[in-house]
């Protein structure tokens, strides 16, 4: 093999790996805070990407309407669970968050949509839509069963994935979509050509990792989230609202997912069901990172991306086999290094 091909594959791998890293980070975040293994992460990716692509063609994506519908359900749940103590403040807050916000968003989408809307506006709209969906998803599907076992949460997560993927087909159709590139600039360095798009991928990934690190290390909310992750009951006893922590985690995860989607949709055609596989590769990275360590997850994601790029070059038939069995040696190492005394679990 010559160096050019190798460099090219490396570059490709790192670009994909950066996306997996973002998704892996989101998965770690959500699992740590809520114990939910977020299978619908892939749907956040496709929803973000395809909403953006549809907005770019001047259409209103169905996801905007979905956000309104989910907001209504979330509002109903809020009222139902607070029926014994309905305060005006609580109702107003719930109306503002669950009804006013998505409705205003839908109005905004209708007002702004058009073939000549600036890219930045489309991105912002797509992000807001997916953020709202992520937030309501937690409220509707997970908050009522937040205390149950990881297994039950996992199955609920699968249910959400199925429903959202099915809705994705309704909204976006079976045809794949591509979105416009964020920038058409390109930099040439030796034999390699860096497009503005891939530079944006690198920049945003690094930016997010740093931002998450700052958020969790230095802000009160970030520390509260970490506390919730370690001990829910303890966190509640010192006054942290664990439901709020869950909502923040889902909000962050959906935004990260949507950003990843928007970053890759100009590079590859995405279908309504592509997200699942992309999300799973984020999983691989997250597992290698042990679902706890952000930097390790990011590094693992880059490795997954590179392995994928190389194996698609040498053994394209067995690309997925290689990527998904990559995890086994890691698991072996982990089990060899497993701690002797394990915490009792429910």
């Amino acid at each position: 093999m010559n160096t050019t091909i190798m460099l090219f594959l490396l570059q490709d791998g790192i670009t994909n790996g950066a996306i997996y890293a973002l998704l892996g980070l989101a998965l770690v975040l959500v699992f740590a805070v809520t114990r939910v293994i977020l299978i619908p992460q892939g749907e956040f990716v496709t929803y973000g990407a395809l909403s953006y692509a549809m907005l770019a063609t001047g259409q209103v994506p169905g996801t905007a309407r979905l956000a309104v519908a989910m907001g209504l359900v979330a509002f109903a749940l809020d009222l139902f669970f607070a029926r014994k103590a309905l305060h005006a403040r609580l109702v107003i807050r719930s109306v503002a968050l669950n009804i006013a916000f998505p409705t205003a968003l839908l109005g905004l989408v209708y007002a702004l949509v058009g073939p000549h809307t600036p890219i930045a506006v489309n991105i912002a709209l797509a992000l807001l839509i997916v953020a709202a969906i992520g937030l309501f998803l937690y409220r509707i599907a997970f908050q009522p069963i937040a205390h149950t076992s990881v297994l039950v949460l996992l199955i609920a997560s699968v249910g959400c994935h199925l429903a959202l993927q099915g809705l994705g087909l309704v909204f976006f159709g079976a045809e794949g979509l591509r979105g416009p590139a964020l920038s058409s600039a390109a930099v040439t360095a030796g034999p390699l050509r860096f497009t503005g798009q891939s530079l944006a991928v690198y920049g945003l990934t690094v930016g997010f990792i740093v931002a998450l690190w700052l958020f969790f290390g230095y802000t009160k909310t970030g520390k509260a989230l970490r506390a919730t992750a370690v001990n829910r009951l303890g966190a509640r006893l010192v006054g942290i609202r664990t439901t709020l922590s869950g909502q923040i985690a889902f909000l962050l995860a959906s935004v990260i997912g949507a950003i990843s989607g928007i970053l890759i949709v100009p590079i590859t055609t995405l279908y309504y069901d592509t997200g699942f596989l992309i999300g799973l590769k984020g999983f691989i990275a997250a597992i290698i990172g042990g679902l706890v360590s952000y930097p390790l997850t990011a590094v693992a994601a880059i490795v997954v991306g590179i392995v994928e790029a190389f194996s698609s070059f040498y053994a394209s038939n067995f690309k997925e086999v290689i990527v998904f069995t990559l995890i086994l040696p890691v698991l072996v190492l982990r089990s060899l290094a497993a701690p002797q005394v394990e915490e009792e679990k429910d």
Partner: protein
Amino acid sequence: MTQRLPLIIFALVMAVIPLLPGVPPFWIVLLDNIGLAALVAMGLVLLTGVGGLTSFGQAAFCGFGAYTTAVLTTAYGVSPWLTLPASLLVSGIAAVLLGLVTVRLSGHYLPLGTIAWGIGLFYLFSKLEFLGRNDGISGIPPLSIGAFKMLSPDTIYYAIWVAVLLSALLTMNLLDSRTGRAIRALRRGHVAAEAFGVQTPRAKLLVFIYAAVLAGLSGWLYAHFQRAANPTPFGAQAGIEYLFIAVVGGAGYVWGGVLGAAIVVILKEVLQSYLPYIFGGQSQLETIVFGIMLVLLLQLAPQGVWPWLMSKLPFKPTRKTPDTSVKLEHRERAPGTSPVLLHIEKARKQFGGVLAVNDVSFDVNAREIVALIGPNGAGKSTTFNLITGVLSATGGKIFVQGKEVENAPPQEVVKLGVSRTFQHVKLVPDMTVLENVAIGAHLRGNSGAISSMLRLDRADEAKLLAEAARQIERVGLSDQIDQLAGSLSLGQQRIVEIARALCVDPMLLLLDEPAAGLRHMEKQRLAALLRQLRDGGMSVLLVEHDMGFVMDLADRIVVLDFGTKIAEGTPAAIKRNPDVIKAYLGAAA
């Protein structure tokens, strides 16, 4: 016989259904599919619900079963019946290989790991030339008995449901046995089970293989039912679906697997056939509704539908009381002549920078009650963990009956006749008191998984249960024998732990705060029991904070403070010891 009655009725009903006139053939196909899914789900019940090991990869094991028979029958012309053992063997071997890697993972690594290899195997099935790539293998011969070929859904129906019922029977037999108790204890962490000699890695691997073999059986039947095998039904989606069949039905219950299969298969079928009529031909609408209903169902019955149904039953299933006249042989004792039962020499344990136990030495003699006391954080429980092998010592030596215990694992220490209770009660809350206590006698039985499934273990099992019942009577909990351990008060749970430890037939009993949570009368009864045990030849080493209890009961007291032994002597001497007073009350100003 009464316990088997519902099963027999169910079997008869299932046998009659295809013979009834007017049953649409389509129903039979549905029932076939339910049976196939139930087999896989049953394995998952054991693996996930009972054993606590979540697997998304079961569909891949179906694939092993199906492809094995597909290749052997089409390419080599082997008779379908001969490929059955081959299919089961291949799934089993695959399970051993994957299991060795994955079952040691705890918590969330395991489910994620299984997703990963589940998908990896799916892609492998769809890429390998000799498995027909994405098209798979077709033209698989039907099952046949003599000239009778099981070509139609209502003939293979019997093969499928016989397999389901037999598997259910075997699985229930397995759960209600010595091995079954070990499996049921897995979900609550391995420390308690290992303290009574359960080889937890082996037990985990066992359920993993068992679940895989059931999945392989389902795959084998599927291949001969469809007469074709392609990768799609063995992918990640199917693996996920099997898991939620088990969870929806009730992951801890064998019949929950069957019920869950019925619910999910019928629900999907109804959605697929009726939704298009209601909403027009919208594509994939059934997945949306299915996903939403799944979430809804979990919110309404997070434990699954089967336990919810059972709790609505007007009558409770009765349990058989064990016949306590059956004798269990005593544990084989090492011919120890040394009067010193336990000898600890400069035991040391360091956790990073913290020295939890600092060169502690003391002895416990035969027929003696020794108390280990000290303020919180003095290293008492750590000392217990060093003696029983839960933790390995950083330095020093521990001898039991003059024989050095060189950082032996808990399973070996208990064989020396040292048994224990835990400071934080480690019982299995959804097992009865009797079953929990019987775990203590694990090493005194010898029936394995196969003999348990075939009910060849009954003589052995009766002895174990009789011993457990005797020990429960001894500690005075006979009235609670059939209650779930989780429903007892914390004090009573501690007593259950003592009964469990006594089932080992120990020489030395280690009790970690046995009197905590007991009322005054209960404490007196416990003290009387411990004295009676000592007079019967047993030694007791206990950690306790209730000074009245300790001073009354102990022959000798060892005092620890910050990991270091500061005093040792009779209760009277300890009461007056200035160092001890200082440790407990602080120095006089």
